[in-house]
């Protein structure tokens, strides 16, 4: 009997913790739906009438170009990363090159170097080649940022393809392309999807490079958000609406990739 009550106590505690951690997110949603005057009251007005004014104001104040920039940099870099990472992962798992673990760890080690140390030379290269404030240059940088993660993840997914099936397929006379399309792709598809979602999230969230390398033309959504850093006055509903809209793609991608999220964030070290 006591054990049951203790167990219930743990459940209540877990629920409490969940509510506490979720409260700022919930409050962000709620405030985004309030009018500016209701958003800035003390004590807070929870039951104030709901309105979409915050969102309207956010989209009216030039929010589309940064959002489109963010989408093109994130989706573009994710596609390039997958095109580079999948063959590389193939050469590190299914038909491994010699010293493949060393290569794998080289990929990982580049991820551990702080980006801030490469910021200046990259800025200078962009400046000399006229690529400052250009979304293609940012896209290329995001590729290098995500490539090691994608290679590690794809390798761990591809190594789950049973070797026996591959051998059987090639004995039956299937060519390389057929094997890739008919055998490897179906098994690796969930892994490819998860890798793509995780790369998308990292590119979408990135601020430092975007802040330094882009301006009016190619500024991304996080750069747009930095416009609120020194804001004063009545803007809480608008900033919350902006935070909700900008976070929405990440929330969707994150929950879609929930099962593989840990694996991605730990670079495939934890399954």
């Amino acid at each position, binding site marked *: 009997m006591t054990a049951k009550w203790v167990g219930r106590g743990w459940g209540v505690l877990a629920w409490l*913790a969940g509510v506490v951690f979720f409260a700022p997110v919930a409050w962000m949603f709620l405030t985004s739906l309030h009018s500016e005057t209701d958003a800035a009251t003390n004590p807070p007005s929870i039951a104030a009438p709901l309105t979409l004014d915050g969102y309207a104001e956010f989209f009216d104040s030039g929010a589309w170009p940064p959002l489109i920039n963010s989408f093109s940099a994130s989706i573009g870099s994710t596609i390039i990363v997958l095109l*580079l990472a999948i063959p590389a992962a193939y050469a*590190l798992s299914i038909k491994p090159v*010699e010293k493949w673990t060393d290569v794998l760890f080289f990929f990982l080690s580049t991820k551990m170097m702080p980006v801030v140390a490469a910021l200046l030379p*990259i800025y200078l290269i962009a400046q000399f080649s006229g690529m400052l404030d250009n979304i293609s240059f940012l896209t290329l940088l995001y590729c290098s940022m995500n490539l090691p993660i994608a290679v590690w993840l794809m390798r761990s997914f591809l190594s789950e393809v049973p070797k026996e099936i591959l051998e059987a397929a090639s004995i039956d006379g299937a060519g390389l392309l057929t094997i890739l399309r008919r055998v490897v792709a179906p098994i690796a598809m969930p892994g490819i999807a998860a890798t793509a979602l995780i790369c998308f999230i990292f590119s979408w969230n990135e*601020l430092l490079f975007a802040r330094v390398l882009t301006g009016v033309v190619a500024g991304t959504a*996080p750069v747009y958000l930095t416009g609120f850093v020194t804001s004063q006055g009545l803007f809480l509903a608008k900033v*919350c609406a902006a935070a909700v809209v900008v976070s929405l793609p990440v929330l969707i991608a994150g929950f879609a990739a929930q099962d593989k999220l840990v694996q991605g964030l*730990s670079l495939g070290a934890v399954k």
Partner: protein
Amino acid sequence: MAVLTREERSVVDRPPPVPRKGYSKWARRAPLLPALIFLIIVTQLPFVATLVISFMKWNSLDPANRGFAGFDNYVNVFTDPDLRSSVVNTVVLTASVVIISLVLGLGLALLLDKKFAGRGFVRTMLIAPFLVVPVAAALIWKHVLYNPEYGLFNGILNWLGFDAQPDWISTMPMSAVVLSLVWQWTPFMMLILLAGLQSKPVEPVEAATIDGASSFQVFRYLTFPHLRQYLELGGLLGSIYVVQNFDAVFTITSGGLGTANLPYMIYQTFYQAHEYGEASAAGVIVVAGSMVIATFALRVVSSLFKEEKR
């Protein structure tokens, strides 16, 4: 992946066949090369450039005066009180965020490892903070929660009948930044530790319970040793990500009030003060520091990796 069952291990076990010579060797390497070459060009060459620039006298506002500086930039970095305090800030910020979120993450993972109604929903609520874009999260904390006049924290104090309406960011700037980051990183630690807990073999725990071990003894002698490598991994990955944090410092305090960390300092030295040489020297120092953490991190990942290959 870290702790695999026997069946899984045999599937992953794939001893690399000895590659044949000549054509076939390069045919194997070919798919790897584009990724490898791309990564070397984009990530390794800039570091070489940083190293070279760190020995140069170079302020972009004074281009005529460019030249060799020897170790001057390094001397400046180490004697500049602002840069020195940014080193301290980086260590304080990283250590407190990582340790606090590891402890909280462990607690939450242990809670979520138990069975209770709505566990999936609670898990989803707990992951949400990690999926808010970092700049957006920092903005929410700064304006919507911490604001002394209309922020939620003071609103709640007011509600509960307290007179105190503290200005959170000015009175405790570092803690304000740390708290917002702990909120974002605790879910990450929780996810890693939960994966560790759920890969824990069940039989020894059952045996120990039958033999009369208390739940504390089970935790101390079975669960914790098993979790150790996951704690190490979480701590190291967390350090690698948090050491580089720019978004929270930039947004919440704009590097003021004694919270500027190294990434922010380097950003400022190069982007606002245009001191290219000094910024590079600071960059080299950050790389050197990261290498220490990275060596440990690589060792941990490598041991998990070997365990998988076995």
